[in-house]
């Protein structure tokens, strides 16, 4: 996304401004806490303590972060191509169908390390497929990707309800979910890694899909900054006109980018299904696809930033649960507010404080920002 603003030193651009935006988002969230009659500073302390205080909390934080890394990467890949994929929720949800089928078919025959790759492929394929139709319609028929992906979220929800209430549910059961997966489709835990550092963990669902998430973050970095296709994607994202002029196929780039984005969104379904609940249940994604938007915006669309932002949101989810326990006036929905505020301040209002930061830099050391800063001030 191009900016009409003057340049800042890189550390200010990628470090200072996101921190300011985040800080303002938390100050506003603090006001909400004040509004319900609690002390925001104590709330923050409880939240951080709950997320990082004990090994148990750290494991849960990383468990939540795993899902958010996938959904954040999904949003980022599409965004580099100038597309806003708001359909991660639906793509992840429908991927549960692929995972369910693979796990139910193979969990009694294969060990987990063979089921897992199959499930990855199935999840990615279903997610990519669910992104393919909106991508095709955007590329070929010019329908707006945001609207079609929203519609596909709802269609996915209907399909999954139909599948879980009717087809995938074991006979005689009332709950709208598949049967519990056997050992062959349960991912091993990674809790021992945290225990190496001396922490005690009773039980936490932190599992090997975290490693997959980190691998994907690396692959996304390679894809976007080290391959020809990534270069074409970024070109198209910056200026579709320039890309067309350079002979880059618009259809190919949109469809490929969206399918990769959909595949990443699909993979986020692995963590809650195979890693935690060991079944595919109704509404198991529970908003993680939308968290990806906040994560990607906060991470400035860079894999490293996304991993950090995902851990921050994992912390909010884990700490938020503790917070709701400690302060009954604050429910877990506080996280949803914070999520909204982060999207508002780090996304829609990302340039609000920029002119002030630039003015500050210009007055402190004019050389770092150059002459343009003076003109950029009025922006």
């Amino acid at each position, binding site marked *: *996304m191009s900016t*009409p603003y003057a340049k800042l030193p890189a550390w200010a651009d990628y470090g200072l401004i996101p921190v300011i935006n985040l800080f303002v988002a938390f100050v506003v969230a603090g006001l909400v806490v004040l509004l319900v009659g609690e002390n925001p500073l104590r709330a923050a302390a409880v939240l951080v303590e709950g997320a990082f205080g004990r090994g148990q909390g750290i494991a849960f934080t990383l468990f939540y972060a795993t899902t958010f890394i996938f959904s954040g990467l999904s949003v980022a890949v599409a965004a580099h191509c100038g597309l806003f994929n708001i359909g991660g929720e639906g793509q992840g949800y429908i991927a549960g169908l692929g995972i369910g089928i693979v796990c139910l078919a193979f969990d009694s025959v294969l060990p987990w390390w063979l089921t897992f790759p199959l499930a990855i492929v199935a999840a990615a394929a279903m997610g990519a497929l669910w992104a393919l139709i909106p991508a095709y319609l955007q590329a070929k028929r*010019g*329908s707006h990707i*945001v609207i079609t992906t929203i*519609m596909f979220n709802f*269609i996915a929800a209907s*399909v999954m309800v139909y599948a879980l209430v009717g087809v995938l549910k074991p006979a005689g059961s009332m709950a709208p979910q598949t049967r519990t997966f056997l050992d062959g489709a349960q991912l091993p835990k990674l809790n021992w890694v945290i225990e190496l550092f001396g922490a005690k963990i009773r039980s936490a669902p932190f599992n090997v899909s975290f490693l997959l998430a980190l691998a994907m973050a690396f692959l996304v970095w390679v894809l976007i900054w080290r391959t020809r296709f990534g270069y074409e994607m970024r070109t198209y994202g910056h200026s579709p006109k320039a890309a067309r002029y350079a002979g880059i196929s618009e259809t190919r780039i949109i469809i490929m980018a969206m399918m990769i984005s959909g595949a990443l969104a699909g993979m986020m379904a692995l963590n809650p299904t195979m890693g935690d609940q060991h079944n595919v249940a109704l509404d198991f994604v529970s908003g993680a696809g*939308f968290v990806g938007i906040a994560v990607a915006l906060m991470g400035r669309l860079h894999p490293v930033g996304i991993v950090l932002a995902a851990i921050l949101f994992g912390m909010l989810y884990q700490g938020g649960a503790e917070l709701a326990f400690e302060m009954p006036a604050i429910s877990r929905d506080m996280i949803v507010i914070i999520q909204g*505020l982060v999207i508002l301040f780090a996304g829609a209002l990302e340039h609000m404080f920029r002119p002030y930061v630039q003015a500050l830099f210009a007055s402190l050391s004019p050389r770092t920002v150059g002459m343009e800063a003076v003109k950029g001030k009025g922006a």
Partner: protein
Amino acid sequence: MDLFNAIVQVLDSTIRLSVPLLLACLAGLYSERAGVFDIGLEGKMLVGAFAGAAAASVFHSAYLGLGMAILISVAFALIHGFASITHRGNQIVSGVAINFIAAGSTIMLGQAWFQQGGRTPALGSGERFGAVIWPGADALRGVPILGPIYSELISGHSVLVYLAFVAVPFTWWVLFRTRFGLRLRAVGENPAAVDTAGISVAWLRYRALICTGVLTGIAGAYLSMVQNGGFVKDMTAGKGYIALAALIFAKWKPVNAMFACLLFGFLDALSIRLQGTPLPLIGKVPVQFMQALPYVLTVILLAGFIGKAIPPRAGGVPYVKER
């Protein structure tokens, strides 16, 4: 006669179900015609519903509730304006943010203020909008065919229902017969031309968003104070997005919007009515299929298979004044 009564009942619930869609759809019409995409309709309806029900139960007045619903909804519309007009942020990102803030804050404040798990207290009779009985509705009830149509279908709705249907010709008149409407449409097609004529693009777009806020506020109040006697968490349940779909379906025209919303309301009413009953010829239709139908129809329409939906040209693009 049984079939006839069933049809009247389905049509009656069609009207009830399409009113919130219609109000939200017209709300979206104002902002999108002015070149501001608004996927925050959902969130603004939700805060409207919460503020309306909360104020009505505290002040024991339906009209104060409605006023509060409009006020808070407009405030959220102005946040959207501040981000996307003043600071030229991404309009879609800002809309998503508003939906999240609305979803979280309504539950949290509801829980903190009323301690009923995110609900507001059930509204009494003076705190809700009651049904308006048209003259002679009871006397004519016995007349075959026309009686039920008059007394069930036309009479007996709340003020807000009639307001929603009056808003359709009114919106048409504002957009296509007033100077404000002409400018509003112009700012959505070619803001540079409006700017050249010496009219403030930002102020025009802000006014369009205020109209949006008023209408989403009424839509929210309808949900919590007419359809339901109080606020329940996430009570909009995607209606804001269906309204957005209806808006595209209607190709950004007020009268079409009414028909699109009635169609989506009808599908909803039908799916409730047909739950579990087999249809002749087709057999039993899964409820989920009927629920997904509005979305599928919108996707097909967007793909250009049922005529082409062309959005306002400057939609989604923040206006940068030349320097």
